[in-house]
């Protein structure tokens, strides 16, 4: 580490010494060295970014830090003293808190109750509910979100609000090191900007932040230093976040020196009969009078902020929500409103936003996950022909290059990118004609992204009509043939992707006009 960086930190106590020093951390799971010599040092008041592809060991490292896993080798020093993080409570006592990608809040409790969970202010065994609410309100104010009511139920908050509650909970325990695992994945642009303000405020008060993200531009914006992990090892540490060239970072992460590229578009215009024809669908308070068409081979992207109605539109097209007016036609035939099985029978497939909770059977094999939507194909009467089923699953796994390529492995054990491929494989196997993709690359690393992009384009070229929703504007622009911009539940722009650029789209979603 560079000493001058440590000197710049506002917290004088740790100047010259790191808050956290990890060296030579090894964690072995049966058959896998998940961590194989990780070195990491974090000083108070900095935002230390952790980069690495899925499977590089970031999650395991976080679990070691939060006391959930015990390292097999290596040492951890906290303020210069040797410590053993034997359990999550020990880590919490030191002041280490992790904000997880899948937020760990109790949905049925209120904001204040969640924030105080585990250390409720009590008097003679009774909850001091007033004190609890006041503490919550103070913390939310400190985080710059006074609009979140301590009394509202957490389950009713949007993802961004839940994240703030999680952070407030960490702060309520006098946190000194906050670990944020892809906090921006569930946020839109404006919310990310506010989150960065909050992070800056924390670091100004001497809190150290370990920030994990797949988005390089965020690391440039918020990070101080970068540590890169690859195959469970630290390959570079203490890189300046602002000035290290992108090409270098990507090369360190992948061993390749390419950025992800979008595949070429096959055609300029699509004419003739549409495969998917959406005619004036509406749902009150979600979206209104939405009409568009997707032709075979065409990729149409929906851009918009979280909460603009884009995901709801996708789910309504799929029948997972019932439209209140209008209709959805596939290949000229109207779908039964509000019926998923009618959509699936007509050849529509959905890769939902929440892979784990909405798409996968985590405790079942990859093979069972792949064949779930096309069991009828392998049925002889009521009986499953398991040889045929296994062969088909294996073929899809090979075609999409799912790794590891073992169909009998539990879906839980795969990385995010490979889980997404499993969901794609499920729909490919049904021979679907319309594919709906909701955030297809969320939590997917840079290398696997390019693969997914190529795969999606390949699918389109084979005649599938693709409808895509993504929070990442470059992704929508790069992958789509045509872009629809959604704002407040209405289509405010509909045109070819080449004729619009990122700042136009941002202008449209945020202000309703291009720039």
């Amino acid at each position, binding site marked *: 580490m560079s000493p001058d960086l440590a000197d710049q930190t506002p917290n004088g106590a740790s100047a010259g010494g790191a808050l956290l020093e990890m060296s030579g951390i090894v964690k072995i799971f049966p*058959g896998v060295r998940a961590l194989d010599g990780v070195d990491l040092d974090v000083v108070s008041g900095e935002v230390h970014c952790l980069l690495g592809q899925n499977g590089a060991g970031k999650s395991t490292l976080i679990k070691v830090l939060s006391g959930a896993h015990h390292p097999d080798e290596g040492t951890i020093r906290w303020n210069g003293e040797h410590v053993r993080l034997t359990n999550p409570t020990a880590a919490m006592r030191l002041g280490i808190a992790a904000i997880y990608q899948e937020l760990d809040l109790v949905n049925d409790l209120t904001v204040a109750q969640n924030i105080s969970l585990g250390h409720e202010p009590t008097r003679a065994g009774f909850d001091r509910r007033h004190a609890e609410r006041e503490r919550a309100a103070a913390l939310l104010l400190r985080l710059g979100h006074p609009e979140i009511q301590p009394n509202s139920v957490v389950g009713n908050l949007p993802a961004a609000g839940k994240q703030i509650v999680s952070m407030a909970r960490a702060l309520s325990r006098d946190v000194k090191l906050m670990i944020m695992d892809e906090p921006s994945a569930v946020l839109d642009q404006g919310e990310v900007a506010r989150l960065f303000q909050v992070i800056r405020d924390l670091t100004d008060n001497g809190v150290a932040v370990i920030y994990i993200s797949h988005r390089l531009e965020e690391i440039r914006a918020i990070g101080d230093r970068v540590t890169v992990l690859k195959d469970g090892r630290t390959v570079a540490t203490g890189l300046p976040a602002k000035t290290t060239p992108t090409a270098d970072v990507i090369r360190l992460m992948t061993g390749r020196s390419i950025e992800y590229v979008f595949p070429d578009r096959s055609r300029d215009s699509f004419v003739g009969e549409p495969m998917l024809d959406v005619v004036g669908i509406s749902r009150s308070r979600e979206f209104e009078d939405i009409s568009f068409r997707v032709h075979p081979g065409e990729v149409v992207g929906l851009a918009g902020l979280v909460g603009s109605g884009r995901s709801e539109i996708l789910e309504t097209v799929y029948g*997972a929500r019932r439209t209140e007016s209008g209709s959805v036609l596939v290949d000229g035939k109207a779908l039964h409103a509000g019926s998923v099985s009618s959509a*699936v029978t007509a050849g529509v497939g959905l890769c939902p936003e929440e892979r784990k909770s909405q*798409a996968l*059977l985590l405790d079942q094999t990859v093979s*069972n996950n792949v064949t779930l*939507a096309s069991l009828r194909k392998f049925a002889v009467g009521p009986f499953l022909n398991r040889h045929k089923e296994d062969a088909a699953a294996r073929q899809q796994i090979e075609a999409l290059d799912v*790794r590891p390529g073992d169909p009998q492995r539990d879906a839980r*054990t795969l990385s995010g990118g490979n889980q997404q491929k499993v969901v794609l494989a499920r729909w490919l196997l049904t021979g679907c004609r319309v594919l709906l993709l909701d955030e297809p690359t969320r939590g997917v*690393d840079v290398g696997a992204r390019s693969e997914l992009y190529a795969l999606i384009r390949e699918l389109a070229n084979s005649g599938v009509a693709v409808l895509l929703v993504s929070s990442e504007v470059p992704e929508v622009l790069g992958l789509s043939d045509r872009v629809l911009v959604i704002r407040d539940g209405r289509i405010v722009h509909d045109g070819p992707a080449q004729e619009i650029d990122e700042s136009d789209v941002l202008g449209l979603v945020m202000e309703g006009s291009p720039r």
Partner: protein
Amino acid sequence: MSESVVAVETPGPPPVGPDDSAPSTSRLRRIFRGSVGRNLGLILALVILIIVGVVTGGERFASIENTLTILRLGSVIGVVSIGMTFVIIGGGIDLSVGANVALASVWATTVATQTLGRDVHWIVMVGCALIVATCVGLINGLMIAYGKIAPFIATLAMLAAARGLAEIIADRKTQIITVQGFLDTFSGDVLGVPVLVIIFAVVAVIGWILLNRTTFGRRTFAVGGNAEAARLSGIRVQRHTLWLYALLGTTCGIAAVMIMARTTTGSSTHGMLYELDAIAAVVIGGTLLTGGRGTIVGTVIGVLIFTMLSNIFTLNNLSISAQAIAKGVIIVVAVLLQQRIADRSRAVT
């Protein structure tokens, strides 16, 4: 395969262990993953029980006759437990099975003794029991799948209502079955094996095939494991749930026929606490109460453990109360053992 992964330097587990030992570990893993591995704890418990039985009971325990007694005693609750396995894997629970058995038995005997008199063919009684019990299951399924009532509550209500209806129909009297054809058919032996045991075996085999070899079974796992994912994959989750409860109802009907044959009566007190015995057998058989995982083989062994335990206690002249305590201990020990082994076989991956 693994060599090419190394060559292109893609991220993933470093090529230490898996490469050289891959074939043998995967075969081992498959065995551990199969029914043998998952039920290892149960088989162990069963073996221990057999040893205890032989040591304490000697000849009286280790005879063909006693073995058939154990099987005959376990057959009725066994059939219900097979149906219960499906419902629990599918993410539900049914507390009304005992009441359902009672209702089906009195309805069938009432048809035979009062409405139609002595001339009734036994098949009418069987049909009546099956139809009544299946309808009770269907009503449960409708309440749960379409009425969105929590399974625990809906079937608790059915437990009370079905038992009450059974008492009204039977007028609180035990009805003796006089249809000779019925008793001849179900109380007899085939080649020395009691018909009841054969029925249990057939139901278990059909249950195994249905769960492991059909689309219905695969969908049951999907609905119980992740209902939302199943729904978004085009599976009609509500309809499937309905069929699961109807199926359990049918097995209750079969159990009603069997208990009528064993006791030669129909009574509103039949099937008392069957719900607890069936759920206990399913759970110690390794089926997750939260759904998504479970086996028929485990359930059958669970039933055998329970009946063998009762048998050993009876042979040694120990009280019913002592039996109950032992049952409680067995449930906890078996589940603990199951969890340990499940954790270990999962850690292999």
